[in-house]
């Protein structure tokens, strides 16, 4: 990767300069879309930390919702700054992750079963949020209490550029963590566990410890992403931040991009968000549901024809032009 560094530097410089490009009235909108891409790519990356080792969670909405709601409720009712609220939220999420991951690992709940257990956990969190409607506003959601003007304590800013740079930093942090894990011993251990647990245990890998570790890391990062999104949108809702819908959306974006590549989650998230925005602009409010219909249809087509993801497929093509000519291996 000797040619990589200059490319990365140029890309980073471009991303840093975006808020200063003259775009007229479009600036707020462009920044809004980019901020969402940064935050959801970060969340997708967090999911792929588990997903790439065969721990396919269908309930990351649980961690997202727990993080976002804990921080928002602490701020709204007790005036606790989201900076400290995030610490509480991260601690709670880590606890939930251990509660889910420990028994799953002890009793070898893998594959379909792991997906369904996590799906149940996601639904439990969503239903609890709705059931506790006196606090959480139930299905109607909850607005983050305005601090009255810009405030670093409340993490509320009128200028989108602040959130843009914060989102950029978050995204870069996510990539850095992904990279660190990718080059660590833990990655080899997790890959061995993903292939064959018994064999991995027999060569001295502590299966339970690694599984819990990766789940906690993934959950905590997801919660941080959820908190960031809640602070930016200043509104939390059980259907957009917990439950099966958002959980599937995260998985989709990542699988679409390719979960085994560093930039896979980012490419997938950027594409799904861009697609949703284009369809929304084209169809507007005249055909409610049409945008989502096409979105669903394209997802099916992509999964049938590009099974290793868009970024993954393109990268494989570029890296091994000769191997790509031969029949692709599944």
């Amino acid at each position, binding site marked *: 990767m000797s040619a990589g560094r200059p490319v990365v530097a140029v890309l980073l410089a471009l991303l840093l300069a975006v808020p200063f490009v003259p775009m007229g009235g479009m600036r707020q909108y462009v920044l809004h879309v980019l901020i969402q891409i940064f935050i959801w790519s970060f969340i997708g990356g967090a999911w792929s930390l588990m997903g790439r080792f065969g721990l396919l969670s*269908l309930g990351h909405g649980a961690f997202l919702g727990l993080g976002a709601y804990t921080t928002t409720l602490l701020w709204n009712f007790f005036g606790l700054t989201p900076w400290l609220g995030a610490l509480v939220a991260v601690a709670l999420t880590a606890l939930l992750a251990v509660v889910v991951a420990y028994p799953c690992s*002890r009793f070898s709940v893998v594959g379909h079963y792991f997906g*369904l257990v996590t799906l149940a956990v996601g639904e*439990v969190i969503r239903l609890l949020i709705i059931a506790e409607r006196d606090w959480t506003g139930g299905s109607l959601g909850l607005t983050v209490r305005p601090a009255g003007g810009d405030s670093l304590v409340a993490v509320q800013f009128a200028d989108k550029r602040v959130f843009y740079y914060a989102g950029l930093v978050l995204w870069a942090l996510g990539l850095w963590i992904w990279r660190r894990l990718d080059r660590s011993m833990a990655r080899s251990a997790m890959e061995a566990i993903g292939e064959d647990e018994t064999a991995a245990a027999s060569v001295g890998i502590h299966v339970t410890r690694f599984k819990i570790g990766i789940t906690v890391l993934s959950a905590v990062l997801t919660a941080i992403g959820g908190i960031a999104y809640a602070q930016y949108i200043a509104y939390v809702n059980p259907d957009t931040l917990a439950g099966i819908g958002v959980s599937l959306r995260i998985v989709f974006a990542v699988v679409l991009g390719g979960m085994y590549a560093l930039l896979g989650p980012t490419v997938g998230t950027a594409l799904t968000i861009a697609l949703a925005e284009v369809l929304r602009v084209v169809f507007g409010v005249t*055909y409610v549901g*049409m945008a*989502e219909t096409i979105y669903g*249809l394209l997802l099916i087509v992509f999964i049938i024809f590009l*099974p290793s993801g868009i970024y993954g497929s393109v990268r494989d093509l570029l890296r091994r032009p000769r191997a790509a000519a031969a029949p692709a291996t*599944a």
Partner: protein
Amino acid sequence: MIDPIFLAEAAVNGLLLGGVLALLALGLNLIFGVIDIVWIAYVDLVMICMYAVYFLVQVYGWPIWLGGLISVGLGALLGVGVHLLIISPILGSAPINQLLATGGLLFFLQSFATFLWTTDHRSVRVTLPTIEIGGMFLSFARLIAFAVALLVMLGLYLFLRHTYVGTAIRAVSQDRGAMALMGANPRVVYLVTSAVGGALAGVAAALLILQYSVHPFFGAAFGPLTFMICVLGGLGNMVGAFIASFIMSEVISIGGVVWSTEMGYVIAFVFFVVMIFARPGGILGKRA
């Protein structure tokens, strides 16, 4: 303290709901057992069939039994369509891709229904009496649904036991590789299974529309519950799914009366998670 009569009523209603849930769980389980793919969008097919019954009966004035028959046919067609268009190209793909392809179908059906029919809740207004037994009020619609569900399940049992194709279907769910060696055509078996699974969704739709109003997110409301019942009973295990349906519906029904509707579901889902740890092979499964 809650009036015991309310609890008894909740218990009976839970039992009646359990019959319809069992039908759904059996359909999904049949498909999983044979094709080894979880149709995430299974209950969304039910939703589409419910709309069909709604329009035929409520808008065009057809009798409910005819609407129900059409719903069964439509369900079978949808099952075949899903298999040919989505499932057969990805039979050899990674499990996550199989799961997500039917998940994409979920998004598609949900939003296409929103586009065509808006998010309004629609219900078929059939005037069926409520009967009183010992102070409990039971809806006749639920009793009919329960009875029909049991009959259809009996029919499914006879089909699987006493026909050639039924035997082939059971053979595949026991050993995929051996079945092809015995000379049964896997493609035919898969198609028949998808059609039967779809038809069961059609029956369930005709029964559910008597009790619930249909809306585009109906699948999202009942889908997760249906998967959990299947897993609780042991994926592919028909008897287990049957028993699990009644356990889950009782927990939801009684929990709903004692606390709140959401808490009923929360207790059921937590129960599911705990049971997965305690008995990973399902309630009737043996510990591995």
